[in-house]
């Protein structure tokens, strides 16, 4: 679509684009160059502030932090998927007394900021009720409650997006409610929503960084610790850059996986139904809506 906004450039447009391109590149280079210049002036490229990377203990410390981050991510992701499945089942129930409370739970946890949830679990429980919860548990539970609610909405949207004929046909064959759901609707819904679900897992991975604020010893926490070590030259910028690279690499991998799944499902759909041109944009919008920051 975007290529449709302008014609193949003629001589004048080519010249204009060239000028714009040069100006754009110059502006970008100026900004990047200025930042790099400030890095150099404030001696962030000195070997002394990068020396920490050679120490074995620090490497082990960072590996440990990475393991802590991944541990929180894996546990939270599994719990969120389970919690989301339960909530989605509740929301899709025909019984008011089940679907009502499930809706309230979903709406509540989606409206309250995740950080406040984590604070309630960590500071609120220990200082308010005297029940001490570890930082890991508070982080994982907070992630589970928030992302579970978002995932429940994704599951529900997936089931709702299926053609009504699917469930009608299944009922006509004499299937029971549970059979219709588990044998007919869910397999199709999960297949359609898999890219969105994986995108939401990227959000879980990103949000593990909130553990920093309740002093869970994950990557950012150790970055802060290393950055304040005077005998290493307080290398907070170099450490932050390395940590950023680790986070971005992990999230990009997961996001790429989501993209791959989407391309695959698109290909399959096309084979089944060649006359569905507008579906792609609809699904893209749905995904963007679901995977909000």
């Amino acid at each position, binding site marked *: 679509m975007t290529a449709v906004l302008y014609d193949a450039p003629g001589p004048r447009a080519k010249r204009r684009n060239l000028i714009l*391109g040069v100006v754009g590149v110059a502006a970008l280079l100026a900004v990047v160059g200025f930042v790099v210049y400030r890095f150099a002036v404030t001696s962030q490229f000195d070997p002394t502030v990068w020396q920490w990377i050679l120490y074995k203990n620090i490497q082990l410390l960072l590996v440990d932090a990475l393991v802590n981050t991944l541990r929180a991510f894996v546990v939270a992701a599994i719990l969120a998927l389970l919690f989301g499945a339960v909530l989605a089942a509740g929301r899709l129930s025909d019984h008011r007394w089940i679907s009502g409370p499930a809706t309230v739970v979903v709406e509540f946890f989606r409206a309250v900021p995740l*950080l406040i949830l984590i604070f*309630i679990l960590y500071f*609120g429980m220990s200082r308010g009720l005297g029940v001490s919860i570890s930082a890991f548990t508070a982080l994982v539970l907070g992630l589970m409650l928030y992302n579970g609610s978002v995932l429940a909405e994704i599951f529900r949207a997936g089931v709702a997006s299926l053609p009504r004929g699917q469930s009608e046909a299944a009922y006509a064959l004499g299937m029971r409610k549970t059979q219709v759901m588990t044998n007919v609707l869910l397999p199709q819904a999960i297949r359609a929503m898999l890219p969105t679900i994986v995108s939401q897992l990227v959000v879980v991975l990103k949000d593990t960084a909130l553990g*920093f604020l309740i002093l869970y010893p994950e990557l950012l926490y150790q970055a*802060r610790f290393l950055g304040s070590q005077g005998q290493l030259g307080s290398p907070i910028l170099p450490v*932050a850059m390395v940590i950023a690279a680790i986070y971005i690499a992990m999230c990009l991998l997961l996001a790429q996986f989501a993209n791959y799944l989407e391309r695959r499902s698109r290909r399959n759909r096309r084979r089944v139904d060649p006359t569905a041109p507008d579906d792609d944009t609809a699904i893209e919008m749905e995904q963007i809506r679901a995977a909000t920051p």
Partner: protein
Amino acid sequence: MNVLLDNLDLYWSAFVGTVELFLVAAIGSIVGGLLLAAMRVSPVPVLRVFGAGYVNIVRNTPLTLIFFFFAFAYPRLEILDLSFFARACAALIVYTSAFVCEVVRSGINTVPVGQAEASRALGFTFGQTLGAIVLPQALRSVVPPLTSIEIALLKNTTIAAGFSVFEAGGIYQNLSERGYNVLVGLLWVAAGFLILVVPLTLLQRNLERRWSVAR
């Protein structure tokens, strides 16, 4: 109830701080996102590549890490001495712009190709095609998801409390120092966010329902 009534002015000033942060960052992120989206659909390849790279990197960076950069690492560069509030705004704008850009870009994609083709056939330039034909139509499908992104931004402002900005996320520290019940205090903060977020969510659903039938 006492926790709230005794500290009404604390809650009030904290939530005012939250709303200020939200408004500045919301306007900034919409402007930034529009600029990025214009770059991503522009005829200049370098700008397209930059826009795509920015969005891909920033969307896959935790917001806490961006805050971390602005709060602890930025002062080391000794560029400009900014307040914590300004740096929190910058972090939120840098992060949210990427999401706004994606929504605007996919909104542009929902406008039928014939619209852009027709305007090109009439001799409109890129700027005219985008500004007078495509963007006004894209707006319909952009506003509902844009609202949910700004709602997420409102909730994300709480992270600023971890980096010395006074707003709703930091109320519990003050209460804890003065011996109030932190759990109750935090539940009131959650209630405050419900009051802010729920109307916005309802607005968003309403827009979605009314505007989705357009095409």
